[in-house]
């Protein structure tokens, strides 16, 4: 008979060791390719922000081995000068999202909508800046005009002072 409060001795059984066999299923050692861009990483993806060092980076980029060249922009797509586009092509920004040409890239709808909203806001800001530039040009023109007036006034004052000086010295001389 076994006393109910005494600890029973359980025989130690070793854990089973797995044997690697060909054809057996295994968990992937690498993280899956990240194709979904989360809202917090959109800026990084488009090159506006560099990925932070503290962030847990994958040990190896899925596209490290094959770094595709960025194709030159097609005619009519970009309104940029040839030199600027050339220099732009020469600079390579490291991005973890450099997808090869063949693989399509998808962005979540909410991210896409947010990007569209940002573009709209950018357009509005650009229009505001154009308005400001116009105002500045007008103000600059007015400033120039006032400078010219002031210059004329100073010249007149100078001429009259010379006249007074001449008159006074003439009177003293006489």
């Amino acid at each position, binding site marked *: 008979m076994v006393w109910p409060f005494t600890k029973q001795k359980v025989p130690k059984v070793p854990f089973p060791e797995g044997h690697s066999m060909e054809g057996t299923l295994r968990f992937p050692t690498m993280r899956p390719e990240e194709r979904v861009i989360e809202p917090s990483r959109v800026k990084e993806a488009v*090159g506006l922000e560099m990925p932070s060092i503290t962030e847990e980076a994958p040990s190896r980029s899925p596209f490290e081995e094959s770094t595709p060249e*960025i194709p030159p922009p097609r005619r009519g*797509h970009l309104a940029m000068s040839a030199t600027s*586009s050339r220099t732009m092509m020469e*600079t390579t*920004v490291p991005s973890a999202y*450099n997808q090869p040409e063949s693989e399509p890239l*998808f962005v979540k709808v909410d991210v896409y909508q947010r990007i569209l909203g940002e573009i709209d806001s950018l357009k509005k800001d650009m229009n505001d800046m154009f308005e400001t530039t116009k105002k500045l040009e007008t103000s600059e023109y007015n400033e120039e005009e006032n400078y010219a007036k002031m210059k004329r006034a100073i010249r007149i004052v100078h001429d009259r002072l010379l006249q*007074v000086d001449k008159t006074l010295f003439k009177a003293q001389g006489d």
Partner: protein
Amino acid sequence: MERMPVFVKIDEYNDVLAVVRGIRKKLDEAKETLLKVTDLKNEEDHQLEMWQNSLAELEKKVDFIDHSLNEPEQF
């Protein structure tokens, strides 16, 4: 039922990246130009202040001459 995420396919993603890089470059140039303009404006303000001081001095001297000529007994 859990909502499934919907994705939008982005064509010519690299072109978009290139354009964004170009925009950033132009923005940097614009920032540099704005700094230069700000420096010029500061210099202009300084010169205007000097001009104002000179004008005030000139006015004082003209006043003195005027008073000297009009009321010589006071001087």
